């Protein structure tokens, strides 16, 4: 039995000196011990910062400095910009990009909001399937809708008459194609924002005798407003920086993205490419900063006390929901269906017999099946390297002791790629990695640089997913581990990683799919031995082999769908084998 000494042992005593000199030496060596433990993690995160700087910041800097240099490399100030302005590029490309992106944003956010409303506020059947169809475009390269639109509304298109004489080659085509491939991005943001509605708010509105219409405007819309803003910024950035759709269907209609391509690939004017890149970087950067600013104001409205909203049975509302969803679903299915059909048609529009001729890529230019296997290798490499890098860095940032300044710098570097259009990143890579003085310029033109570039390009979203997953874990796991004499590494492997497995699978799929479908960054970087499937689509289309281009786009989409199925299977397996500890007995 312990004995207690009430009253005398619990001294309050301020006369004891803080540290006596003799103790100081011992304390110093202990301090050193403690510091090396912390410094190891800080050092690793510094390394992470260095890697991201090398992959994003340094290339961007080279690009910016290129934009104020002439061909010979002398500093010329803003001469290049002045030259671009006087050539009329600003009026056409810059403003074209702005209004096309703006209009696409309006259309996509409107459609996505209607779809999200129908999926979360009505009791339509088969919402799982509907969601599946609505996010299908994410598995396709952005070139696919453009090609499909050519078949649908082009000069020999089946529905050409529907345009009443208007040309699909131009802004109409760009907007339609952009809407197709950016729709899932907006939808997913809005679904996240609207899935977690608090049922109590709706009950309160009903109790206060608000009409459904008034409830919609006072509860539903305010609840989704951050999602709406975020979706708008994301779609705007995606459209204005996209290169695939305007390249295929833009015709003579200039936008910034195609202008960069023309300046660099067509005319070999690298410094002018840099100038247009800076102009493209500006709106993307602004949208990014504005979105960050708005998101910072967002506070969690769905708390532990909220009750999830369950829509009541209401046939009229279900019908309205179906009417809102139908055009979008039909449009998506028509685009994909047209591409699939076109890829099998022997010779459009003269021989409509179905065959596999268009899939014999060996007979066309563009890299053939080799491009496809390159793409697979590149996507797998991106997936493995990217997932490891993203998770390790996010873990360092979230779950190890770090100086606040360092995490701030790292967070900035991780999110920066979100503001950098793929074309701009690709062009920066040329300037940075192809520079004769760069000691690692040997990787230029190899699959490895494509992997590095793609990892950097899609770093930010992966990083956010990883950080969100890591933040959700109990903040005290590491502290408990320390008290139980377990190193952070042991906690990482025995607790953190098993708990983050679903998020890791999500990040892996995201990186794989994007690596398969991306065109914009890699179009400047592939070499003779590292042609990619998505670039092959572009090149075959440019060469007039539009049916094989459709076939290759379908092949990419199918590959991504297969990856999605495999990932879905893995997630199902993980969920099943961890159900016991995830949900308890119920």
């Amino acid at each position, binding site marked *: 039995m312990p004995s207690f000494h009430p*009253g005398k042992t619990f001294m309050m005593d301020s006369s004891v000196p*803080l*540290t006596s000199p003799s103790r100081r030496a011992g304390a110093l060596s*202990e301090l050193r011990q403690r510091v090396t433990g912390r410094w190891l993690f800080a050092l690793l995160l510094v390394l992470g910062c260095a890697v991201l700087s090398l992959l994003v910041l340094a290339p961007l800097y080279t690009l910016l400095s290129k934009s104020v240099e002439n061909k010979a490399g002398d500093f010329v100030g803003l001469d290049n910009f002045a030259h671009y302005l006087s050539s009329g590029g600003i009026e056409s490309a810059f403003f074209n990009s702005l209004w096309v992106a703006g209009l696409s944003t309006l259309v996509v956010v409107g459609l996505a909001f209607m779809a999200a409303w129908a999926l979360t506020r009505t009791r339509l059947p088969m919402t799982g399937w509907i969601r599946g169809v609505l996010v299908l475009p994410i598995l396709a390269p952005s070139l696919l809708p453009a090609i499909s639109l050519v078949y649908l509304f082009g000069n020999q298109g089946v529905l050409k008459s529907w345009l009443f004489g208007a040309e699909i080659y131009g802004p109409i085509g760009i907007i339609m194609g952009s809407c197709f491939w950016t729709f899932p991005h907006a939808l997913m943001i809005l679904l996240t924002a609207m899935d977690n509605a608090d049922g109590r708010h709706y009950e309160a509105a009903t109790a206060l005798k608000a009409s459904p219409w008034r409830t919609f405007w006072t509860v539903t819309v305010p609840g989704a407003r951050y999602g709406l803003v975020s979706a708008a910024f994301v779609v705007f950035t995606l459209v204005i920086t996209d290169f695939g759709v305007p390249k295929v269907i833009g015709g003579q209609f200039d936008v910034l993205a195609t202008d960069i391509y023309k300046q660099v690939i067509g005319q070999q004017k690298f410094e002018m490419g840099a100038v247009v890149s800076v102009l493209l970087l500006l709106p993307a950067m602004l949208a990014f900063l504005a979105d960050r600013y708005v998101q910072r104001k967002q506070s969690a409205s769905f708390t532990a006390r909220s009750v999830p909203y369950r829509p009541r049975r209401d046939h009229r509302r279900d019908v309205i929901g179906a009417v809102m969803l139908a055009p979008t679903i039909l449009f998506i299915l028509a685009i994909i269906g047209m591409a699939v059909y076109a890829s099998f048609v022997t010779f459009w529009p003269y021989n409509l017999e179905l065959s596999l001729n268009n899939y014999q890529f060996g007979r066309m230019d563009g890299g053939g099946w080799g491009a496809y296997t390159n793409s697979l290798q590149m996507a797998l490499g991106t997936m493995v390297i990217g997932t490891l890098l993203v998770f390790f860095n996010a873990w360092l940032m979230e779950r190890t002791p770090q100086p606040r300044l360092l995490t701030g710098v790292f967070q900035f570097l991780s999110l920066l790629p979100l503001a950098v259009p793929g074309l701009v990143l690709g062009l920066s890579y040329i300037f940075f990695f192809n520079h004769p003085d760069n000691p690692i310029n040997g990787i230029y033109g190899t699959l490895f640089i494509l992997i590095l570039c793609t990892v950097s390009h899609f770093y930010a979203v992966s990083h956010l997913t990883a950080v969100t997953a890591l933040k959700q874990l109990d903040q005290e796991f590491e502290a408990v581990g*320390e008290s139980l004499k377990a190193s952070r590494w042991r906690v990482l492997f025995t607790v953190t990683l098993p708990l983050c497995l679903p998020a890791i699978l999500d990040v892996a799929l995201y990186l794989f799919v994007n690596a398969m479908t991306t065109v914009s960054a890699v179009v400047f970087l592939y070499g003779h031995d590292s042609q990619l499937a998505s670039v092959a689509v572009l090149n075959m289309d440019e060469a007039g082999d539009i049916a094989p281009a459709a076939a290759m786009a379908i092949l990419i989409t199918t590959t991504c769908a297969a990856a999605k199925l495999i990932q879905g299977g893995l997630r199902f397996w993980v969920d099943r084998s961890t159900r016991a500890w995830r949900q308890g007995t119920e």
Partner: protein
Amino acid sequence: MIQHTQGSRLEVRGVNKFFGEFCALKDINLTIEPGELVCFLGPSGCGKTTLLRIIAGLEQQSCGTLRQGDVDISQKPPRDRDFGIVFQSYALFPNMTVTDNVAYGLRSIGMPKARVRDRVDELLAVVGLEDHARKYPAQLSGGQQQRVALARALAPSPGLLLLDEPLSALDAKVRHHLRSEIRSLQKQLGVTTIMVTHDQEEALAMADRVVVMNNGVIEQVGTPLDIYQQPASAFVASFIGAMNFFDSAPVNGQRVRLGNRELDLVRPLPATPDGIRLAIRPEDVHLLPQGDGEWEGQVQAMDYLGAFIRTHVRLHGVELDLVVDVDPRSARQLELRVGGAVCLNLPSDALHCFAA
């Protein structure tokens, strides 16, 4: 019966903690004897959790030293210190069974498998969870999870047990039950224990000694009885239990003025240039039949709180409002009713006096 090593003695000397300009802890000094259960009690933001985290090494003090037994642990990382900790959230590893959670710390020190098994069985028996050994935390109730966290913290036989608001996530009934269970387990093991809480009832019921904290300083250290009966400051007096306060002025020595009367005090007045504040607990006021007491007043309101009636009385002459707790039987005898007249005494041995 379960064996445990002797709890260790803990000395905190001159600990300060700054977050930027903000001073979270100011010159903290205290000694905790082996086997004691000490509660850090205070409102949120008073620095109690910061102090606990500094003792654990999860937070680094700006200056000051910590000694556990004969060892200076001031600069040691948490892993080199000797403590077990239970957090408010429990932080159980959700992907591991109860057994694996409890065994986690034993495995990190490389204990042989057979001994790990024995030790885990022993601990699960102590906390009464033998039947749940193979379950996952999510399959247990809050109270059961709490016990797993306790067993996990105690498994490596630490000299010091730190509890960070361990009961606040539980509902009232479970909380009361676990309170006495933790206390008896702690006595049985003799492990020195520090518990952080904002619940005064919990602190008074469990602790050998209570450390009342406010704004980063220790206001008072003492047994629960000391803290309640002899609060060292107006803050302690008002934070622990209910208290009536009156502004007053010293007359001389031990006499003070309240309204138009002078009162004698048992304790000497605090030395203060300004006015003083008199204080008395609601249950220490004597209500008397009409015409008997020194003070007269009128009942303003009565709140029935079950075991007692909280009566609000306005004193005539001084126009002071006073809260008095009366048991229902006395209330009946006194014929207390809202609007009725009442007499009362303020016993001088129950009067506290603080600097204003």
